């Protein structure tokens, strides 16, 4: 009897969170799958149409472009972000006066809202903005108007994402550096390993779990990019900066194609799941614990 009372109390503690989880996360996961097999505009009754939404995606050009843009975005931003973050983490680990102030400043872009960051950079990327002023200073006679160019708008958005996330990843990697055992460096030094070799054979393997974490969260985040695109380009010019979440948002909340948008969100979910599972599998080859 006492035991049941105990269980009851435990479930009481759990209840607020569990109800929220069931209603606002678990049920929507199932419902989203159901909606993806339907045609629904939010007003008229929901109509079951089987696999049609998914079939339509195969021939939907905008979806294809968004997916390719997103893959390109991920393939470029994640590796560059991680590489720069490792460099920055190494710099942050140097013991000089005032280093704490530098760390505080480096982290700054990450706490500011993406929408604000996007607005600032959109202004900076205009034809006569500071980016082009700097380029002219270094001799570019005719710098482009970035966000109006179908080939440069996406790279501009990617630059902003990299700029925003390097500080965050560097802080995590910096914390990881503290955990690399000092004896390993001493042993490597005794073996005559130079700085570069020590970095390659001690620092990198020691950091690999943290790097892995950064890669996984970086990939997940890059498939969810939205705010920056909204503030900088709204998917344009043309469809050159259209990404998945932007297209899902437009289909659902601008054009009221809730069924089709649900199918796209499920595809997004499955992509993230697959990429994450692949990474979990591959990590055994390069992550050392």
């Amino acid at each position: 009897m006492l035991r049941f009372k105990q269980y009851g109390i435990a479930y009481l503690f759990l209840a607020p969170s569990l109800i929220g989880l069931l209603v606002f996360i678990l049920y929507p996961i199932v419902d989203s799958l159901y909606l993806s097999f339907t045609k629904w505009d939010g007003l008229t009754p929901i109509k079951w149409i089987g696999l049609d939404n998914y079939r339509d995606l195969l021939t939907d050009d905008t979806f294809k472009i968004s997916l390719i843009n997103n893959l390109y975005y991920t393939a470029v931003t994640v590796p560059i972000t991680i590489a720069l973050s490792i460099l920055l983490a190494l710099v942050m680990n140097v013991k000089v006066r005032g280093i704490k102030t530098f760390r505080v400043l480096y982290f700054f872009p990450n706490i500011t809202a993406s929408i604000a960051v996007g607005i600032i950079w959109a202004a900076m990327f205009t034809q006569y903005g500071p980016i082009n002023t700097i380029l002219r200073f270094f001799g570019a006679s005719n710098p482009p108007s970035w966000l109006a160019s179908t080939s440069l708008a996406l790279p501009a958005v990617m630059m902003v994402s990299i700029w925003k996330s390097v500080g965050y990843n560097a802080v995590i990697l910096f914390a990881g550096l503290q955990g690399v055992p000092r004896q390993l460096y001493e042993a490597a030094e005794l073996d005559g390993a130079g700085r570069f070799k020590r970095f390659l054979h001690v620092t990198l393997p020691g950091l690999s779990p943290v790097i892995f974490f950064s890669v996984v969260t970086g990939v997940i985040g890059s498939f969810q990019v939205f705010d920056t695109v909204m503030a900088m380009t709204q998917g344009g010019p043309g469809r050159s900066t259209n990404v998945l979440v932007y297209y899902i948002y437009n289909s659902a909340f601008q054009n009221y194609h809730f069924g089709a948008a649900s199918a796209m969100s499920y595809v997004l979910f499955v992509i993230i799941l697959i990429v994450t599972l692949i990474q979990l599998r591959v990590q055994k080859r390069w992550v050392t614990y």
Partner: protein
Amino acid sequence: MEMAAGEGVNKTIGFGGKQVLRTTLTYILLLIVCIVTVLPFVWMLSGSLKNQATIFQHSMQLIPTQPLWSNYSDVWSKIPFGTFYLNTIKVSVLSTAGSLISASLAAYAFAKLKFPGSSKLFLLYLATMMIPGQAIMIPQFSIMKHLDLVNTHWALILLHLFSPYGVFLLRQFFIQLPHDLNESARIDGCSEFGIFFRIVLPLAKPALVTLGIFSLLGSWNDFLQPLIYLSNEKLYTIQMGIRYFQQLNGADYPLILAATTMSLVPIILIYLFAQRFFIEGIAVTGIKG
């Protein structure tokens, strides 16, 4: 750069020329990164005090010859900034308080209480952390529509209330607290709720503060959810407010930058006040800010 970097070996013995050179180079590097990080914000501030004609004419002149403070009051006369602040404060404070309560209760159950299905449920919480929010936003919207909460702040607050990540983070913290504390309190006749409120919560202050700050930051900076749920201008949050202002004022960059600057002020203040928690919290938990 791999130098002191990562090696954790502090080579500050002696003041030879080589040491001075190395320190100088380190500072140059630190400063370059600092400039790249901070310049966009400085440029924003500077641009917000210029006028349409001068902002791009001398786009790298960081100190405007005649600072145009009226830009700031102009923003206030064009949009109800005060209302946007109050809306954001309401949404962020309520959702942060709610998520701290629901997450700490559930975390306590998982960490300190025994009940059937405990480990399976916890695994479920972990699994849902992988679901991208965008994959479930359409069913969430339809739930809110059924509850008649679209175009209210409650929709945003409810969606922020249940954070599987918060449960996970706090559980990790609670589990480290010595079990004897609970036992002796129980023998003294203290109820489970009493133990939770009087013993566990006070001890968990650092973890609660970390989670609180990130939750606050998350809802303060959120853009997509308000965009989906709020169509009444009076209900806009600050992120929607600046985006709305950007749309209204197209190319009036000084005004847009003044609005953006104002949207960042509260977050910058919170950050400077609590940066220790931000950086340590991020480093320890890897929460995405």
